[in-house]
C-alpha cells in the first residue's frame, strides 16, 4: 500500500477553545489509484491533505507513505520524504516568483536529485509550456501558472501526487484542460493521486471519492 491513513486526528487551538478538525480519518491508496476528497468548506479536506504531505503535524493516528510513518519523523525527514516521494499542486499555483517557468518546472526534480532534462522537456511539451519556459510567473496567465505547477509536481516522478483544488482559481474551460493534463500526467507516471475538490463533476473523473463531514469520512 502506497498511502495508509489510519485513525488520523487533528485539533486546532482557537480563541474559543480547541476545535477538532479531523476525528479519526482512515483510508488507503495504492500506486496508480486516484481518489477525490470532497466536503463542505471547513470540513477538514485541506488539513487532511497537509497532514498527508507532512506539511502539518497531526495529533493522533498514523500516516504511512511507502510504509514509513510520518508520526515518528522529524522535520528534516518529512522534508526529505516530500522531496522524493510527494508532488504537490495548490489552488494558488505557488510558483517561486524569482525563477523562470522552466526553472520552476525543474525545481523539485533537481532538489530530489532526479532531474531529467529530457523528461522536463517532454512534460513542458505535454503541458503546452514549451514557448513559455523563459517567462517569469508574473508574466503567465493563471492557467499557464497552474500547468507549470503540475509540471513541477510531476517532474520529480513522485509516487504520490497531492492536489488541493488545482482548478479552483480557473474558469471552467481552462480548468477542464488543466485537469486533463493532470490526470494524463499522473497516469503516465503511474503515480497515485489524492485531490481535494468542491466539484462533483471533477470528482467523478477520479477512481474513487471520499466525502468528509465534520472531520469524519461520511
Amino acid at each position, binding site marked *: 500500500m502506497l498511502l495508509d491513513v489510519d485513525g488520523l486526528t487533528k485539533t486546532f487551538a482557537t480563541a474559543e477553545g480547541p476545535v477538532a478538525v479531523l476525528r479519526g480519518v482512515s483510508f488507503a491508496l495504492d500506486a496508480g489509484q486516484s481518489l477525490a476528497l470532497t466536503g463542505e468548506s471547513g470540513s477538514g479536506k*485541506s488539513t487532511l491533505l497537509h497532514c498527508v504531505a507532512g506539511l*502539518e503535524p497531526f495529533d493522533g493516528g498514523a500516516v504511512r507513505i511507502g510504509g514509513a510513518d510520518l508520526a515518528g519523523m522529524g522535520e528534516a525527514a518529512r522534508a*526529505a520524504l516530500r522531496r522524493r516521494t510527494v508532488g504537490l499542486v495548490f489552488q*494558488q499555483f*505557488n510558483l517561486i516568483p524569482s525563477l523562470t517557468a522552466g526553472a520552476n518546472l525543474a525545481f523539485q526534480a533537481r532538489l530530489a536529485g532526479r532531474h531529467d532534462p529530457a523528461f522536463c522537456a517532454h512534460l513542458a511539451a505535454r503541458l503546452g509550456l514549451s514557448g513559455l519556459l523563459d517567462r517569469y510567473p508574473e508574466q503567465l496567465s493563471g492557467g499557464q501558472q497552474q500547468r507549470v505547477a503540475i509540471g513541477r509536481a510531476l517532474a520529480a516522478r513522485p509516487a504520490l501526487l497531492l492536489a488541493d483544488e488545482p482548478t479552483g482559481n480557473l474558469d471552467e474551460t481552462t480548468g477542464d484542460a488543466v485537469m486533463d493534463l493532470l490526470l494524463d500526467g499522473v497516469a503516465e507516471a503511474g503515480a497515485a493521486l489524492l485531490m481535494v475538490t468542491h466539484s462533483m463533476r471533477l470528482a467523478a473523473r477520479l477512481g474513487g471519492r471520499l466525502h468528509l463531514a465534520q472531520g469524519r469520512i461520511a
Partner: protein
Amino acid sequence: MMRAGMAAILSHWRRHPVQLAMLLAGLMLATALWTGVQAINAEARASYARAAAVLGQDRLERFVAEGAARFDQAAHVALRRAGWPVSPVLEGRIRAGGLRLTVLGVDPLTAPPQSGLAGLAAQGGFLRFITPPGEVLAHPVTAARLTEAALPGGPAIRAAEGVPEGTLIADIGIAQAMLDAPGQVSRLLIAAEVPAGLPDWREIAPGLVREAPEGAGDLARLTDSFHLNLTAFGLLAFAVGLFIVHAAVGLAFEERRGTFRTLRALGLPGGRLAALLAGELLLFAVVAGGAGVVLGWLIAAALLPDVAATLSGLYGAAVPGSVALRAEWVAAGLAIAVAGTLAAGAQALWRIARLPVLAPARPRAWAMAAAGGLRAQAAAAGALAVAAGALAVRGDGVVAGFALIGCLLLAAALALPVALHLALRAAAARVRGVLAEWFVADTRQQVPGLSLSLMALMLALAANVGVATMVASFRATFTGWLDQRLAAELYVTARSPDEGARLASFLAARAEAVLPIVSAEAVLDDAPGQVFGMADHATFRDAWPLIAAAPDVWDRVAAGTGVLVNEQLWRRAGLRLGDPLPLPGGALPVAGVYSDYGNPAGQAILGLADFDRRFPGLPHQAFAVRTADPAGVAEAVTAAFDLPPDRVLDQAAVKRFSLAVFERTFAVTGALNLLTLGVAAVALLASMVTLGAMRLPQLAPVWAAGLTRGRLAALEMARTLMLAALTAVLALPVGLALAWVLLAVVNVQAFGWRLPLHLFPGDWAVLFAAALAAAALAAALPVRRIARLAPADLLRVFAHER
C-alpha cells in the same frame, strides 16, 4: 468620514506593531543624532558668545597696535589724559595645572560698564583684586581645577559664574606679571559714549588703529569648520535614519494598497486619503521626534566632554562639559523630524493621491517598481559623480568640500543597487545547483526591497572607512611629526628671566646642547600669530619637518635673511618660497615651510639672533636640551632649581601628552561613526522585518518542495551576510575617496594643513567584520522568525483565504 477613514488606516499598525516600532525607531534615531550634534554646537557657540561678551569684544570698539599683538601702556596714559574714555586690556595664554588658560588683565576702575568687567571685579572688593599677589576670577569649574600655587605670582582664585570656562580675569597689573609682559597692553576698549570735541587719537597714539567690535569673536570663526564637520556628520546620520523611515513608510503604504482601494471605492476622495496619511505621518513625526530630541540630549551629554576636549586641544576654546536644554535645538529637532518624515513619505503620498480607484490591490513588490528605476538611478549616480569631480577640481572653501562629499556619497548610494544588480546577474550566469540558482534569483528579487537599507549601510561604512582613514593617516603623520618636532630629549622652562639665565649656565655644563625657545605674539597675515626664535643647530637642521624649502634654507634663517612659516600661514596667505612676509621690524622672504599640526594660528620662525634683534628684551626662559642622559639631567635640574614637574618635561612625556590629546580629539568622531553604523543596522533590521510578511509567498513553495525551515533560515542569514559583504566591498573605494576629500580638501580648508593618505588594510578587515556583525544582528530576529514559522502560517499561503 475622516474619522472612519483614519481608523481604517491606523488599524494596519495594530496588526503590525513591529513595523510601527521600526518606523518610530528610525525616526527617533535620526532625530536623536541630528539633535545631539545641534545641542553640542549650540552649547559650544553659547560658550563662545559668553566669552566674547565678557571680553566686551562683541559690542565695543577698540584701539590695537598696527602689526603687533601688544603695545606699550604709555599710549593708554596719553589717550586718557586727552580725555578719551579708554580702558586697557591685556590678553595672553598660560598653561597651569594642566590647563590652557586665557588670562585677561583689566582695569576695573576704567572698564566701560558695557564690558561687564567692572561688575565682576567689584564682587569682592577692589583692594584685594588690584594689590599683589592679587586675585583672579575664574568660572567655578576652572577654579575647582586650579590651585593658587599653580599660577605665576600665586594670586588668590575666586569662583565667579559670569566668567567663561578656561579664562582668568585679573587686574591688569597682576596680569602683566602673570604673563611676563610688564607695561604691555593688548588693546584699549573704547566706551560706547565718546564725548564730542576730543583731540584726534591718531596724533596722540600714532602706532594704533581703531577697530570695530568683533561680534562673536575669533573662537566662533576658528571653530566654524569644526562645527560644520559635526553638522555634516549629524546630517549624514539623519539621512541614514531617513532611509529607515522611507523604507518603512513606503512598504507600509504598499501593504495597505487593498485598504486604500476599498476606501476609495467606498467614496473617500484621493486628496482626503492623502491628507489622512499625511496626518498619520505627522503624528508619528511628533511622537518619535519628541523622543528623539530627548535621546539627542542624552547623546550630546555623553559626547560633550570629548567635544570640549577637542575644541580645547585644537583651538584652546573652553566649552563646559554639560548640555543645557535650549529651545533652539529642541524646536529645530522637532522641525527636522517633521520635515524629514514628510520628505521620506512624499513619494508614497504622491502615489496615493494619484491612485486610480480601480488600481490593483495586490501588494506590489518593490522589485517591480524598482526595475524600471535602475536606469534612472544609474544616470543620477553618474551625474552626481560628474558634479563631485567638478567640485574636486574647481571647488573652493569648506562648504564646497562638504558639497563634494555629499555628491560623492549620494552618487555611491544611488549606484549601489545598480552594482548589486550587475553583480548578482553575473553570479546568476555562473552558479550551478538548484539551491544556489534559487538563492541568487531570490536574492536578486530581494535587493530592491533591501536597497534603501543597504544604501544606509553603505553610507555608514563609507563614512567609517573615510573618517577612520583620515584619523589614522593623521595619527601616523602626527606621530612622525612629533618625532621630528620633539627632537630634543628634555624641555625645561624657568619661572623668571633670572632663573632662565642661571638655568642656561647650569644646563650648558651638563648637556650636549642647550637651545633656547623664545616666542612673541605678532600679527601675521592680518591675524594673530606667533613668531619664534630658533637656534642654529643640527637638531633642527636634521629633523625639522619641512614640507617645502629653498636649497640653503637653514643658512638663510641663521643669517637672518629668511624666515620659516608654518603650513597654515603658507596656505592661508597664499605664499610661495621667496615671497616677503611682513614681520615686526621688517619683512623677510619665506625660505621654508613646515608642518604644524594641532595649531590653527599662523607661525613664523626666525634665526635666534634675528629674533632677539626684532624683539629686544625678551628673556630666554625655555630650553630644548640635547643630552644622552635626560633622566639624570632632569633630576639634577629639578633638585637644583626646585622646578615643578610641568616645567621639566622629557620628550616621551610630551609625546604621551600630545598623543593623549590627539586621541581624545577624535574620540567624538569614533563615537559618531559607531552610532551611524548602529543606525544602519537598525535600517537593515527595519527593512527585513517589514519585508518579512512579503517573504512568506516566496518561501512557502520552497518549503513545500522539501526544504526545512531551518535551512531556509540559514539561507536567509547567508543572503543578508552576502549582501552586507558586497556592500562593504563597494563601500571601501567610496570610503577611500571620502578620506582623500577629507585630507586633501576639507582639512586644508578647515585647518590649513594637508595630510598624506595612508592605507590601513587591517582597519578595513575590522570594519568588514563589524559590517557583517551588524548585518547578522539585524538579520537575527527575522531569521529566527523564519526558523520558527508555524507550518499553519506557511500553509495559509496556499489556502484560498490568503
